[in-house]
């Protein structure tokens, strides 16, 4: 991992064939509009995976974290899973009714890195966003914070600081 970080930070891009960063395999990710519709119908919170085509850290997160069978079950069963392509011109409709592109959603979120993970209520209100590589444990913690409703009383840092 340390080596990967060093290489990425140095920006040394070496050709090694076709490796894509897309939604992790086996998860029922859908586009933004379908996800919002599904969330409203089910009452489940929304988990937005804001990725970029060809993104190394997205690829790393998919392989290291989203490959976990328990995490797949946890998120597939309890969230409306949405994948957004950070550079796409595909249009989506915000809960306000505004139509913007997927790339513009990144600008609205001030997304400075991918992957970016956004948790929203079933109505589409943002709960929190967390950028960069995350572990299985991180996503389990975020799940407890979101579905446990702790975000209504505590910041994420307060919540995580209180766990043992």
């Amino acid at each position: 991992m340390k080596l990967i970080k060093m290489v990425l930070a140095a920006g040394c891009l070496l050709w090694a064939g076709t490796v894509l960063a897309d939604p992790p395999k086996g998860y029922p990710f859908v586009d933004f509009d379908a996800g919002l519709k599904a969330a409203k119908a089910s009452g489940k919170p929304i988990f937005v995976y804001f990725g970029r085509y060809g993104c190394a850290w997205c690829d790393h997160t998919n392989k290291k974290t989203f490959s976990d069978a328990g995490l797949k079950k946890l998120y597939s069963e309890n969230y409306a899973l949405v994948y957004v392509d950070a550079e796409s011109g595909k249009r989506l409709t915000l809960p306000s009714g505004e139509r913007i592109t997927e790339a513009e959603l990144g600008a609205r979120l001030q997304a400075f890195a991918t992957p970016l993970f956004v948790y929203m209520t079933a109505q589409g209100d943002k709960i929190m966003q967390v950028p960069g590589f995350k572990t299985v444990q991180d996503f389990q913690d975020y799940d407890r914070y979101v579905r446990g409703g702790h975000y209504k009383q505590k910041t994420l840092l307060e919540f995580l600081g209180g766990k043992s």
Partner: protein
Amino acid sequence: MLLAVLAFPVHAAWTWDAALTVNSVQGAAIFPHIESANRLGVAVSGETVGVVWEDNRDGSPQCYLAIKPAKAAAFKPEVRLSKNECYEPVLLSLGAGRFVAAWEETGKVYARVMPGGKALQLSKTAAVQVTLARGGDTLYAAWAEQAGRFKRIVVASLALKGDTLSVNSAQPVEAIVPADEQGWPALAVAGDGSVTVAWEDRRHRHTVPMASHSRDGKRFAPPARLVDRKSGSVDGLGAGMGAMRPTLTAWGEQGVVAAWLDKRDFLSGYDVYAAFDPGTRTFGRNLKVQDSFGDNMAQWHALIVGDGAGRLVSLWDDARDGTLDVWLSEWEGDAFGDDAAVPAAHGPGAQSDPVATLDAAGSLHVVWIDRDEASGTRVRYARAVRK
């Protein structure tokens, strides 16, 4: 050397007129947008300024044009360009107060001379993200057109007779069926009449701004990368850096300049990068546009505008001062100068999405979005002249 010769006087400051609101209808649930291919949302034709945008005041996204005689104190009420769901309109000057507008409507792209003309469907099949350029009396359009599973870039030569447009010829930049998505074309016609087209291209499994040139607007050279970084994975991960939304401008006697959003520094969001083609029809090394105060901040909605006299200005928005503001930087011969905020698009609130043009006298016309979810989002305009 040539780039230095083409530099406009360094440190010339801008004097800004009072900003005006362009859109006459605003509301909490009305959302205007000025996003378009090559960010071509404002044009100056003779003594008339034109601005195009899309908003949903009529219940669905529709495209609008508002014009203002140069000496008028306000824009005239806008006219609607589209009949059905419409996105990403662009505007080009024809001179003498006339314009060509183009837009996407129900999945096809259209163009129309304003005032007076009738809409012409440019694409025979599904197409999006249309843009325009003009060199002398020759008009060009480019768009992203469905070709099998993916879209590819098509460039068309347009004929104009009175207020009537027609398509002389339209051909893809590459004849082969695209291997992955292409989109967001930008066009520029250089002083020698050659046509440059740039676009987003995913053939390398990440988004790469690419460009191609044509002497006659019909036969295009093999595409070349605008970014001077190679594609490739890191330790078997990913496929390459991010980049998006290339824009182009003709510049100087024969030059073309490109600017785009570039994520080679992946920890600080997109930066604005530029590359110059001084007339060789090859883009050179990439230059960072924004200054160091913007380095740790994501830049968005970048564009570049230039003219035959060698003026060259890049604009974008970022939140370095706490809220989104519109910034610009001028080419100073060997580098882009210090960033300067557009005064009326700086300060409390969110001011973003600049589009701009330079008029024949060298004045800079800037349009941006001033977002206010409570009282309604405004399309704003300001002109700057040199002191």
